[in-house]
Structures are given as C-alpha cells and as structure tokens.
C-alpha cells in the first residue's frame, strides 16, 4: 500500500492511497482534509454571538436555546450529508468499477458501474467558479452507438485533487482497463 501527499484544487492537503490487491484489481482512495477545530469553533461562536445579540434585542431566552439546537442539528446534518472524509475508487478488471464516498459520520454511499458499460476513464477540464480545474471522469458507453458516450460520471468531486494526483490515478486505472483490450473475449 502506498501513500502520497498532494494538494487539492483549493490548496488543502489530501492523501492518495493506492492499494494493489492483484494484477487486475486496484483500490485508490483520496482522503480529504478533516474538519478543523478552528473552523468549527469559529462557526459555532459566530452563530452563538448572533443569537446572543438577538437575545439582547428581543429579551427572549428561547432564542438562545433555539441557537444551541440549531447548531447541534446543523453540525449533525453537515457531518452526515455534506462532509466527505474519503473518496475511493475500486477498479476490478472484468467486473467493474466501484466509487465509494464515505462521510464524516461514517455513512458510505457507493456506486458500481459494470465493466461492459465503461468506455474509458479520462481527465477532463472544467470551469468551476473562477478557476479552471481538471477532474477525472468515467465515460459510459452508449448502448446504441458504439462510438458514442451516454454519460459522464465525475469522480473525486469533493476532494478535487490537482492534476498531478489525477495523473497517478489515471495511470493506475488505465493499466487495468488496457487488460480488457488485450484479453480476448474477457467478460
């Protein structure tokens, strides 16, 4: 298992971990930066200061309890639905590709794409806010048109690694995808 450190598009440090289970199976995981204590405390303090200001204005103590509850619920929702801890890509030659996102609360959501539907894995450019970023995506085969692409599935959307990390991932995936071209009639 190898681990390298890179930077994401926004400058945060991310870790790429590559694990080779066998010649035709690789797992690549990108670990996003953790939730920082200072950003959490900054958000919480801001929310509570605002609530205290409201309390001073309105003399209603319900504002304070409401602020506490909202902060807690908001934190839970953020950890469970928004904050992604790790995104991983599991490529199994002749079976398929599995994309897993694991959230900070432990929830994992996976998508599996069969190898017959995968046309190719490429690096694309996109304009995101005020930047141009690169992203890795899986091109799905159009069943009607062998040359066409029916869908583009972007990967590593929340960790947004930079080009050097993407090139590593791309090379690893291509090594496995090439095997299906060389192997005759592989399923």
């Amino acid at each position, binding site marked *: 298992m190898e681990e390298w450190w890179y930077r994401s598009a926004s400058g945060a440090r991310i870790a790429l971990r590559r*694990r080779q289970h066998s010649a*035709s*199976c690789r797992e690549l995981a990108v670990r996003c930066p953790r939730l920082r204590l200072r950003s959490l405390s900054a958000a919480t303090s801001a929310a509570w200061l605002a609530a205290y200001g409201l309390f001073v204005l309105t003399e209603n103590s319900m504002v304070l309890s409401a602020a506490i509850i909202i902060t807690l619920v908001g934190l839970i929702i953020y950890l469970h639905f928004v904050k992604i801890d790790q995104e991983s890509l599991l490529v199994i030659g002749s*079976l398929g590709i*599995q994309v897993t996102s694991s959230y900070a609360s432990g929830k994992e959501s*996976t998508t599996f794409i069969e190898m017959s*539907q995968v046309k190719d894995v490429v690096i694309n450019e996109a304009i995101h806010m005020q930047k141009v970023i690169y992203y890795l995506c899986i091109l799905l085969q159009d*069943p009607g048109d062998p040359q066409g692409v029916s869908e583009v599935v972007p990967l590593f959307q929340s960790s947004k690694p930079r080009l050097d990390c993407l090139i590593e991932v791309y090379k690893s995936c291509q090594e496995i995808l090439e095997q299906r071209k060389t192997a005759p009639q592989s399923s």
Partner: protein
Amino acid sequence: MVLKVFFPSCCASAESGILIGRWISEQNSAVILAVIHFPFIPVQVKQYLSEVQRVTKVSVSVLGSWSNSKREKEESLSEFLEDLGTIFSHEPWIQISKEGDSKFWSCSTLQKNSNNPKEEEIILVYYDQRKVMLSHLHPPLDTAASTDHKAEDASKLSAIFDTVAKSKILFMTDRYDDGPIKLTHWQSDGVEASIIVELMKQASVPACMLLTFLLSLVSGVCRSRKANIFVSLLIDVALGLLLISWLYRKNRIGHLADTLIPVADHVAEELQDLLQWLMGAPAGLKMNRALDQVLGRFFLYHIHLWISYIHLMSPFIEMILWYVGLSACLGLTVALCILSDIIALLTFHIYCFYVYGARLYCLKIYGLSSLWRLFRGKKWNVLRQRVDSCSYDLDQLFIGTLLFTILLFLLPTTALYYLVFTLLRLLVVIVQGLIHLLVDLIDSLPLYSVILRLCRSYRLADQPPVIWQCGTDIQAANLQLLPQGFLDIPLQEAVPWRAHLPLETQRREAGLKTAKELERLGQENRLNPNSFGPKASQSQRLLDPFN
C-alpha cells in the same frame, strides 16, 4: 481469461459437499446456488437437478466441490472430491476448500481438455443470497434501443440476479428435510432463526412489526455493534428517568438524606463497639495489653474525628444529594455509580483502618522474616535475590533475637486487628463490586441483537434490499464488491467473509462486503504468513491443492 465464481455467503460455514448452480459460459462465470452434502446418490442428484431445470428453466448443474474440513486435510477426501469431477462431468470443475481453523480459502479449477494451458485468474465474489433473490436489477429506463441491442448489451450482472431469482424452488428443500438430497442455502439458516416468531405468530405479529420498525429506525443510523450501544444507552436513560421520577416524588430523596446521617452514626457506633471488644479479650484470646490499648485508642480517636466531620457536613447533605440525584437523568448506570461512590465515601474510615492494620501487619511480617533468618544465621542477598549464609557478631545476634521475640509475641494482636479490618473492607468491596457488576450488565447486554433475534422473522426486512423493487430507476447496482476475493496466477488464498457473525448481522449487511471492511479484515488476518507470501509458497500449493 478470467473465471468468475459467485459464492453465496450463507454456504461459507456449510459442511463439505458438491456445488450446484449455473454456468454462464458467455461470461465465463459460475453462479453457485447451493451445496449438496454427502452422502448422496449421484443418480438421484442428477434426477433432482433435471427436475429443477424443468420447473425453473434455469440450467442448473453440478459445478464443483466444496470442502470445509475441521481437521487437517485428508488425502482420501481430496481424492474423492477429484473423482467426483469424473462422475459429474463439468468443464471447468471448480474446487473450493476451506480449512476449519484457517481463515483462508483456496479455489482452483480442473480442466479436463487442457487446450488452455495458461492458468486463468479466478475472481471469487460473495453474495448475500436472500437479498439477491429478492431484488431485481433493472436496465436503464432511457434505453429505447431495439431488442437486439438490448439483448447483447444487457447488464451481465442481471443474468446473475435472474439465475438466483428464478431458482426459488431450489430453496424449498433443505438439509433438515428427510430426503435423498440435503442442500444448504440461505434458507438453511433462516429455518432455525425464527422459531419464536413462528410460535408467537398469531398473538404478537403487530408487536413484533412495531418493534422491528423501531429497531430499523435505529439500524438506519448505524451498524449492529453501534446499534447495541445505542439501544443500551436509550434503555439506560429511560430507566434513569424512571428512577428520578420515583425518587423525587413525595420527597423521597429528602427522606433518604435524613436517614443518611443516622446510618453513618450507627456504623461509627458499631465500629466503636467492635474496637472495645478487641481491646478486651476478643473470642477468649489474650492480647498484649499495652499494644492493644494503643491501637484501640488510636482507632477510636479516628472514629471520633470521623463522626465530627459527618456532623459538620450534615446541614448540606440534603441539598447535595438532591442535586446529585438529578444526574440520574443521564442514565441508571450513572446513578448506580454515584451510589457506589457514596458508599466508598461513607466507609472511608474503614478503608483507613484497613490500610493502617495492613501496613502494621506487613511491617511486622517483614521484620519477623528477616529476624528469623538472622536467628538461623542466614541473610537475604538483595543483589542475587536469594538467601545466603552470613556470620553475625555476637551483639548483632543478641539484639536480633531480642527483637524477634518481641515481634513474635506481639504478632497475635496485630494479626487480629488486621484480620478484622480486612474482613470489614472486604464487605464494603463486595457491595461495591456487586454494584459495578450490575452496571456492567446494563452496559454490555446486547439488547438490540437480542430483540432483533427474538422478533425478526426472515420475511421482514429490517433494511431495505440493496436494490429497490420496480418503480425506482436504478441504473447501476449498489453492489459492494469484495476486492480480496481474488485468486491470482497460479493460486492465492482469499480472505473469507466473517462466517461467525450472528445471523442478523449476516443478513443485515449489504450483499457483498465493502472494500474498506475487507481491508480491515485483511490487516487482522495478516498473521497467516502464507496469505500474501512470496510466490514460492504459492507454487507449492499449485501441486497439491488440498494441502
């Protein structure tokens, strides 16, 4: 070419037998549906399979052999399994074996007509048979292509799903039925699990459904181990709130506080009586008067101090107890622990007495043993940690003997005090230990699993199947694949799934394992050096797959 074998997770703990299922040659994959156990008559097996084939229209055949031996591999068994390949001719003949204590499996294929001399890679995929059977894999809804295209490009995995779904009749007979064929499949576990449900079915179906619905809410949040902790915590807090409501009604806590001081006084008085008894002639033993008086007065003074402190605290006890009792809302275990601490505080003087008595006794024994050695002319060598002989001077011997005599005759007194206070301390420790035991019991009772086990019928799903039934558009299956089911050229051992989990967890977890969990398992299983060792050890296995 890669050979894919889909193995049902429920058969991982089955006894040895032959594998039956469907061989999909265009995908070079084998879907195993069940295991037929020994003994069987091959003709009957073939008849049974042809009947199943007729009814389900799925070409079920014998695909290979499965061996799960608790002891070391037996030569006869391995030869027998290979010979089976000649009876049920199937290309390729798949052999999967697992040794009882080892966590590693081995899978190999036998090719009769070896026109393909190159060893092929084998992928072993575990699947949860029940979930796969109950699910349908839908093609994407927007494919408006012609049926020809659809047939070609249809998802290859849908063939697997279809195979399992159509073979429902195969799952009707079981190894517990009396018949010529003894099968193991997902129903083999299920038949035993819901006995209680079957028994109480008429009366309690609504209650069970409600309970499992509530539990499914819990399980939606987390996995089974965390769900256990979660449910225990909930029950704990509920009991604590119940306790509070009982304590604070009719001001019971005030009464409790009021009785606390008299109880402490009573204990102190009893201790004083005990000491007076010790200072006299306890149980008819004659004590050394002077030492007795000294020790007795010393301890009596302590008790006097203690009573004074208690009386000093008495006005505040009620308020403190009132507020401390409120903390029981955090759970019954918290209240029990606080009770244990209060007991420890109230019996602090007993603890002090025990410490004094033990110290004195320890010193005395130490002195006695050292002087006894001097008496015999020996010495303890600290450097070598052993007893050496030593020649003492005359005055050393004289003083040593004198001291020895003094200590020896004072021994009964000290020993008696030590004994009495140790017993008292033991009493307190036992009470505290019981409380802690109760707390541990409440904490560690796996209520979630217990309730699930009791109430769960295998028809109720506590988690929605991996793929929803028709209506929702799912394009890609939510299968979570097993990266370590890989068998490389020539042969490699695969890390098996956890076959010893309770049935509920087996069923609850998604169809196939996630890569992350298997990574964790793989790290646990690294103890076996054969697993990811160099190719040399693996080539040994090539020669004799059953070793």
